[in-house]
């Protein structure tokens, strides 16, 4: 047969490479059975391999294994016994010719560290969880599962609370798949972890592949691919109930799950329920309210076909906090959150993020013979994500001599208790403050310390007074909302052409249609809210009628008064789709593993404006915009040299392109159809990414070492930011940064050493440098007066993009966690089923997120007259533009647990205490883009306390997590 010949050739090829040094014998044998040390139950699907060979077998349902069909190497060997969730055992054996070695019964110990997995999702700092977008978290769940790697396990358990991201790469560069369907969002490219949060019990079947390492499902991504298998048949029969208590984000979690296992009739089902709750975590006013349910049913039709349905629904609400300045944290502490205020005696947060996006999946698994399987998946997701806010821009329409105008948009700052005008620094901003200034600063300080929170009753009272006067509401509570429906199809094939060659491929198609709008949630005692932009009136170049037009959120329906449940401000539809495929070949020989893979995809976005925005009349905002299309491709290859049984060298490299996410493809998607390509010079391109890494591994029974060096370059990236700046006469702007080049270079080291069977030492270190490699192009857009110019095409004065040239970012650090991290730890695992561990973790070289706007040529130009400052001193300027580096710090974490067996129940607990010494540390922060010219930056730097100082996120002070569980 041809296949046979091919296999023979391949075998011959590798045999010729000539590393065969062990004698094989057909006569030798090895068998035994595996039991759970607790339950004495025989364990099925345990993999037994002979170390340094490709030979393996699995236990059957009775827990028995037998290498009888295999050719075994003779002499002293190590049998490795692996099962997910259990501690891997290495077992020295001697295989003699003609003798069948019977290992009888081998104990396998359940890895209680598995219980730790559930910590991961809550040790993330508040910022990461809340926003899921602001500063990205690493692909943590995947890391947790890859805990056999010392470095990644350190990154997951001990580094994650500091914004540390392996290689400085955010999770928009990582992929998460569930049952073969990619879960990353179109909007920001990130997986929305809360869509399956709280279901830890049923997410233990995870495969994590680092970076672009081969995996069966997808091409791979810079920060790795996590595949979560949530098929009903893949869960062990049994149940688990647990209760967790913590002071980090939720205060309590209760979780229960039960799996039937595959029953005799071929059916299997799994159900999981959980609730996480808390009125506040470490950060004040951050409520947590999350319920999760998961149901999966699978029917094994025959040996070849299985059909599975998995569905999960995890509605959750979180109270949001915000980054604060040094001044604020000095007065109120690092856990201060200005978003809440007392209402009816309880803390009420004005900013709540709510996510409710249930998913149902239908999966078909088809074993096409022993060597090939095909899975076909259909996923449907529907639901919404919303974030609430207060709107303080209420106005009233007045009519005067057939003209209309708006009054009441008094620009009231007072909803934010941490607004500069409520802080001492604001009153001491002048070079020589007067006695009255000092008095005001003192009063501000006392008020802020004593109160410093949102005054709900005051806001409501204002609206009630308005109602009495027949006026509209000044303040309303609203939500920014995204309703989306997504259909997802994928087919994944995995075939072993020979014992040594495996081919993986997939095609997938995903389409999403979303509606995005602001919606009034509560009128707070008012009767209605006039849906106009009061700031539109501030443009001296336009007549009152033009201003009134500009102010409309929807010209089709001007001067609308909206009430609860009405959409206002903006309203648009977005359609996004992607069609892609990947193909990969893996060749495994005794000495060399090799893979090569490629991918192509096509991504399209189209915005459809449902409101005709006053600033952008006609098709610029209303109806369908142009269709954006990105064609992407990529290739990767890698090789592993197995020097001997204990040492191996890995090398892998890739080049691929990545389409911008919706967020980075539209400059101001709420207001208009303009794409980034429309506002910048030239077309927006896909990001181009190249990466190479080289790793060396030692794995002996006692010592495990991994040392990896990497280099990643990202080019043509786009980043869009929104903020208010004092520059350009004071404007709310969208900052579009294009052609960004970044470089991530560094190394990772992980070492573990088993001193005694019970004591293990571990060490991990990361050393990196993440910098910008070029000066990207900066373009600002805004609807404020200083951006309006006469447009000859439309014969009207209109907002126009303003290119500001290059932002001089080259050699600045890319913000995102410490570039250097190191860990030393020790673990003691008592044979009596208890264990403790302590780690000491050091972090340094974390940098603030710089303001690109401050680093354009405009910095040296006087905004008053447009000519360079005559007092510009390059030495001082250098100092003003220096990137802040955060202080280094050390965190000590403790962990421990114990388990018992009570009849047929396992009962256990584990607890962690993080940051034992209560170290106060900054995890990240950003410069405010208020004062972006030399003179005002200098003025600001001369103040004892800056008025618009950088804002920071703080890491958790000492925190605990306790989990108690029963398994049956």
């Amino acid at each position, binding site marked *: 047969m041809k296949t046979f010949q091919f296999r023979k050739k391949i075998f011959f090829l590798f045999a010729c490479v000539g590393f065969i040094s062990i004698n094989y014998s057909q006569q030798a044998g090895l068998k035994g059975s595996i039991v759970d040390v607790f339950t004495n139950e025989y364990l099925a699907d345990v993999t037994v391999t002979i170390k340094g060979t490709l030979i393996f077998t699995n236990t059957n349902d009775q827990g028995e294994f037998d290498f009888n069909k295999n050719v075994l190497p003779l002499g002293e060997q190590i049998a490795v016994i692996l099962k997910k969730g259990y501690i891997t055992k290495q077992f020295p054996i001697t295989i003699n010719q003609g003798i069948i070695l019977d290992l009888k019964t081998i104990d396998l110990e359940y890895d209680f560290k598995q219980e730790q997995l559930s910590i991961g999702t809550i040790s993330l700092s508040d910022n990461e969880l809340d926003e899921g977008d602001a500063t990205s978290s690493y692909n943590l769940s995947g890391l947790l599962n890859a805990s056999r790697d010392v470095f990644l396990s350190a990154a997951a358990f001990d580094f994650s609370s500091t914004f540390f991201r392996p290689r400085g790469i955010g999770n928009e560069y990582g992929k998460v798949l569930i049952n073969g369907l990619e879960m990353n969002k179109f909007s920001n490219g990130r997986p929305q972890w809360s869509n399956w949060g709280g279901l830890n019990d049923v997410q233990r079947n995870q495969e994590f592949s680092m970076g672009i390492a081969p995996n069966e499902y997808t091409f791979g991504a810079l920060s790795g691919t996590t595949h979560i298998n949530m098929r009903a048949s893949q869960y062990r029969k049994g149940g688990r*109930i647990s*209760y967790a208590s913590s002071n980090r984000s939720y205060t*309590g979690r*209760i979780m*229960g799950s039960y799996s039937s296992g595959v029953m005799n009739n071929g059916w299997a089902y799994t159900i999981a329920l959980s*609730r996480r*709750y*808390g*009125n506040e975590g470490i950060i004040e006013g951050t*409520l947590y*309210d999350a319920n999760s349910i998961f149901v999966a049913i699978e029917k094994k039709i025959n040996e070849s076909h299985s059909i599975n349905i998995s569905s999960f629904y995890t509605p959750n*609400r979180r*109270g949001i906090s915000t980054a604060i300045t040094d001044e604020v944290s000095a007065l109120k502490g690092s856990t201060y959150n200005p978003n809440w205020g007392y209402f*009816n005696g*309880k803390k*009420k947060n004005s900013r*709540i993020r709510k996510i409710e996006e249930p998913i149902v999946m239908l999966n078909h698994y088809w074993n096409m013979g022993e060597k090939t399987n095909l899975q076909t998946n259909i996923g449907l997701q529907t639901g919404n994500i919303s974030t609430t806010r207060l709107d303080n821009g209420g*106005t*009233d329409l*007045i009519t*005067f*001599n057939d*003209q209309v*105008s*708006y*009054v*009441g*948009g*008094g*620009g*009231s700052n007072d909803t934010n208790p941490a607004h500069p*005008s409520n802080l001492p620094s604001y009153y001491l901003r002048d070079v020589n403050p*007067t*006695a*009255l200034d000092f*008095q*005001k600063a003192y*009063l*501000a300080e*006392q*008020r802020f310390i004593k109160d410093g929170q949102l005054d709900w*009753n005051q806001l*409501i009272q*204002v609206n*009630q*007074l308005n109602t*009495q*006067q027949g*006026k509209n509401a000044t303040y309303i*509570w609203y939500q920014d909302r995204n309703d989306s429906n997504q259909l997802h199809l994928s087919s994944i094939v995995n075939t072993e052409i020979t014992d040594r060659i495996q081919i993986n491929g997939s095609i997938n198609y995903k389409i999403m249609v979303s509606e995005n709008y602001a919606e009034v*949630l*509560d009128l*707070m*005692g008012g009767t209605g809210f006039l849906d106009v932009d009061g700031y539109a*009136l501030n443009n*001296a170049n336009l*007549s*009152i009628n033009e201003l009134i037009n500009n102010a409309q959120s929807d010209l089709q329906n001007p001067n609308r008064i909206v009430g609860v449940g009405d959409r206002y401000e903006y309203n648009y539809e977005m359609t996004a789709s992607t069609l892609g495929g990947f193909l990969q070949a893996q060749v495994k020989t005794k000495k060399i593993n090799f893979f090569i893979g490629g991918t192509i995809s096509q991504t399209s976005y189209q915005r459809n404006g449902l409101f005709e925005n006053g600033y952008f009349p006609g098709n610029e905002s209303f109806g369908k915009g142009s269709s954006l299309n990105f064609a992407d491709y990529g290739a990767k290859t890698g090789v592993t040299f197995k020097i001997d049984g204990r040492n191996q060298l890995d090398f892998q490299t890739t080049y691929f392109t990545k389409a911008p996410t919706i967020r980075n493809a539209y400059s101001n998607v709420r207001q208009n159809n303009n794409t980034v390509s429309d506002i910048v010079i030239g077309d927006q391109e896909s990001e181009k990414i190249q990466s190479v890494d080289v790793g060396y591994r030692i794995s002996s029974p006692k010592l495990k070492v991994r040392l990896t060096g990497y280099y990643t370059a990202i080019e043509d990236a786009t980043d869009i930011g929104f903020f208010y700046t004092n520059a350009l006469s004071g404007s709310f702007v969208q900052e579009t940064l294009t052609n960004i080049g970044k470089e991530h270079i560094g190394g990772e080291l992980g070492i573990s050493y088993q001193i005694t069977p019970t004591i293990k030492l571990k060490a991990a270190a990361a050393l990196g440098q993440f910098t910008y490699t070029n000066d990207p192009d900066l373009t600002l857009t805004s609807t404020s007066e200083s951006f309006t110019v006469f447009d000859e095409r439309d014969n009207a004065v209109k907002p126009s993009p303003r290119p500001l040239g290059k932002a001089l970012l080259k050699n600045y650090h890319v913000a995102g966690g410490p570039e250097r991290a190191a860990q030393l730890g020790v673990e003691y695992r008592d044979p009596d089923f208890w264990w403790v561990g302590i780690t000491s973790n050091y972090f340094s070289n974390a940098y603030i997120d710089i303001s690109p706007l401050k680093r354009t040529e405009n910095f040296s130009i006087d905004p008053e007259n447009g000519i360079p400052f005559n007092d510009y001193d390059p030495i001082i300027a250098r100092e003003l533009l220096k990137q802040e580096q955060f202080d280094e710090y050390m965190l000590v974490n403790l962990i421990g647990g114990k388990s018992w067996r009570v*009849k047929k*129940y396992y009962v256990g607990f584990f607890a962690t205490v993080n940051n034992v010494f209560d170290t106060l540390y900054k995890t990240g922060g950003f410069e405010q883009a208020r004062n972006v010219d030399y003179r005002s930056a200098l003025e600001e730097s001369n103040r004892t306390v800056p008025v618009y100082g950088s804002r920071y996120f703080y890491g958790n002070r000492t925190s605990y997590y306790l989990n108690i569980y029963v398994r049956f």
Partner: protein
Amino acid sequence: MNIMNVKKRVTVLLVTILITSCVQNDDFDIPVLAIEESVIPESGIIGIGAVLGSLAQEQLKDDAEAIITFDTPDQFVQGYVISSDRAGNFFKELIIQNAKENPTAGIRIAIDVNPMFTSYEFGRKVYIKLAGLSLGISNGVPTLGVLDGKVIGQIPSFSQNEYIIRSSEITTITPLELGIEDFSNNKLSMFIKINDVQFNKDAVLGTTTHTFAAEPTDQYDGERILESCTLGYSCILSTSTFSDFKGVLLPEKQGSIEGILTKNFFGDAFNIVINDPTALVFDNPERFDFSCGTADIAGTTVLFSDDFETQTNRKPITGNGWTIFTQEGTETWEAYTSDGTNPSQGISARVSSYGSEDERTIAWLVTPSINLDQQEGETLHFETSNSFADLSNLDIVFSKNWDGNPTTIANARWITLSEGYIIQNSDDFDEWYSSGIIDLSCETGVVYIAFRYTGSDTEDFDGTYELDNISIDYN
């Protein structure tokens, strides 16, 4: 303990946890609006007038920049809010007056709070705690605030509720009806109404109608001339360039305006400031002004002229068809000569209320009737000069329905001739200013042209005006 028991206990535990795990919900349970009436003892209340009186005394003793600081506890000033920053035309100030109608005193409170309308709406009664505050003149207006060096500073926002106490009472404010000629410092910070006013034609009849405060020349405030239609007075309507209605176009018609009498930033001129444009009810289409524009050259033939050289010094103007009429007061137009620092160009015509002891002086000098139908290309020019004019006023009006009888002058309809330069208070008193050549040719019929002086024997209003070399010509 058997398995069932364990299960039961676990269930009970779980249910208990679930019940106790409620988290803040998204609903608002809106409380009832209740502003509690503050108990301010009657004995502690001081009138705004009394407070202003003590400042005036201090000013007499000391100087105009005097400041008094209050330290007696439990003293309160009470008043009604008449300013509203809802439309952004007031900034960090609150103006109150002492009565809902016919107020006798008003005062400005400077406070570092924006916006104020959200707490103190128009008509709300408030009490101002005095202890700790200071009173002085700021921007020309008596202002309560805190002492900031030697000036009145804004009350810190953090002390807002300590110093301004809301009463539950909201009242309807009846504006005080006032003529521009009645403006005085003791009417400052009151809610007033002026009837029969119009905007100067340059603002509303030109090629582009002016806005309240959005002209390229407007800095901080847009100042617009409001003219009285009954007398020649005018005053300034001042609107902040930060107001929400700054871009609204001024009305062409005439009517009434309600606003607060205050002063400009420099404190040297009276201003009216409105809360929002609905304060203007300009519904009378009959404007009281007229213009054919100006001409490049005067007519070649004289129709009527006078250089007053034939008049007798210090005697009322007479002859040559002139009518003089003293509508109010005792003063009239008379001949005058001087060759000192204030030269009279020989003999000229002069009017002044200085030393007249008049409460008001309105003095007319009217030309003989001019028939505009008998020739073409009529023009008018004259020269004016003044001394200490201040707020006294000279305007040029004409009538088509006056019967020529002095006693009926006040009953005839007089329209402002809005072309022609009349000397301003800021001009040199020792110079004569030409009116320029005023075109009359578009008008028809028989008209009288009058020079109308308005003043009184008070310091700001007792100015002197001089007129010379008047000539009406045609081609």
